[in-house]
């Protein structure tokens, strides 16, 4: 009664101060090991020369903003999705469209290629993630074979198959991530912890084990154990929404791009941010990031229509790529690292090499 209310208030206050002191202790522990900056360690590394990277292919066909893209493991096919509800599979060598499907919703914010190359997944404002087997049979419509796998209570912002066609990981505006069985549509694990919309996710390279990283509107990047559903590490150094997260190829670190106009590198074993990629002249948000094969270069697409190429070790920008006529919304390096593809609100995708 009255005394219970008082007791609860005391407990709330105690817990709050315990949380504050734990946060302080976490910062202290992290700071103790912060003995040097990454770019200092990299001082003796040879600086990178001039880069000649140009648009080698332009994929035209979407009727509205391109929101997401993914490469097929065959290093040539690309799936892309758009605000107009269309999902297209392209052969990036020839620029031919091989498949197209119209979703029942607009703003298809997420799409992914299955590891086998035989299916794609996509979703957006429909709050679902659906899987479409790819068929070359002209008598079969792709839409007929559609399988609804994931159901969220808000928009789907990102999706990715795991190591096989059998499981999909999703991120949603409902603040959660989830792991689903494709065949049965069953929810295998859910990941709660973000305080706002989750905007992006990336799976750790398979050698590193069962973890993934997610970024959200709560400015946090969180690393999750896929089996337990537990958040194992969290980082909150960005000053605005985290739009994109991508693992460093060794799996020991990840980069993030944010509306605060910076990209940052977090080392998982040092458990802290180890580099910031920013310039005073860059004032627009970074929407999408990916590493080159060796991890030396970080490609980042921005809302000012450009792509900046960063030297990951030295922290310096090595190139700016112009070409898109509106925001760059999505960017992925090809599976063998020979090229990267960017998608934009200018309705096109460009392959750069």
């Amino acid at each position: 009664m009255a005394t219970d209310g008082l007791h609860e208030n005391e407990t709330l206050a105690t817990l709050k101060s315990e949380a504050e002191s734990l946060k302080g202790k976490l910062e202290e522990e992290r700071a103790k090991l912060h003995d040097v900056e990454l770019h200092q360690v990299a001082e003796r590394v040879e600086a990178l020369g001039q880069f000649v990277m140009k648009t080698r292919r332009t994929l035209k066909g979407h009727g509205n903003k391109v929101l997401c893209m993914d490469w097929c493991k065959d290093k040539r096919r690309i799936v892309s999705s758009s605000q107009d509800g269309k999902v297209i599979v392209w052969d990036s060598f020839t620029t031919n469209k091989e498949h197209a499907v119209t979703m029942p919703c607009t703003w298809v914010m997420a799409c992914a290629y299955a590891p086998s190359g035989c299916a794609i997944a996509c979703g957006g404002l429909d709050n679902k993630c659906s899987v479409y087997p790819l068929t070359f049979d002209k008598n079969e419509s792709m839409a007929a074979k559609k399988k609804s796998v994931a159901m969220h209570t808000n928009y789907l912002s990102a999706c990715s198959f795991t190591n096989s066609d059998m499981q999909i990981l999703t991120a949603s505006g409902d603040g959660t991530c989830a792991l689903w069985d494709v065949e049965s549509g069953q929810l295998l694990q859910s990941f709660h912890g973000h305080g706002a919309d989750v905007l992006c996710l990336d799976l750790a390279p398979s050698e590193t084990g069962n973890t993934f990283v997610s970024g959200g509107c709560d400015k946090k990047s969180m690393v999750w154990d896929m089996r337990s559903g537990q958040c194992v590490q969290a980082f909150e150094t960005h000053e605005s929404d985290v739009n994109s997260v991508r693992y460093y190829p060794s799996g020991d670190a990840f980069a993030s791009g944010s509306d605060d106009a910076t990209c940052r590198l977090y080392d998982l074993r040092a458990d802290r941010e180890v580099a910031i990629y920013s310039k005073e002249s860059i004032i627009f948000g970074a929407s999408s990031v990916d590493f080159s094969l060796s991890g030396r270069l970080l490609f980042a697409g921005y809302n000012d229509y450009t792509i900046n190429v960063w030297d990951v070790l030295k922290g310096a920008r090595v190139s700016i790529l112009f070409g898109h006529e509106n925001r760059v919304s999505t960017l992925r390096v090809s599976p063998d690292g020979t090229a990267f593809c960017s998608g934009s609100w200018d309705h096109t995708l460009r392959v750069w090499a």
Partner: protein
Amino acid sequence: MSSGASLYALQRLVEQLKLEAGVERIKVSQAAAELQQYCMQNACKDALLVGVPAGSNPFREPRSCALL
């Protein structure tokens, strides 16, 4: 009711923070050295970094034009 919910949320937060505080960490100098080493070891395979012999990057190959 609402205080019950925030009590639960705070308890979870405290548990989560204890978990994160207990993570084993290495020094940034060591972590940075290993990131650098990975870059150096794989640089030669990184086509976007070092380029590849002419003709072996399918995107850089000149595309044939058919003259009609």
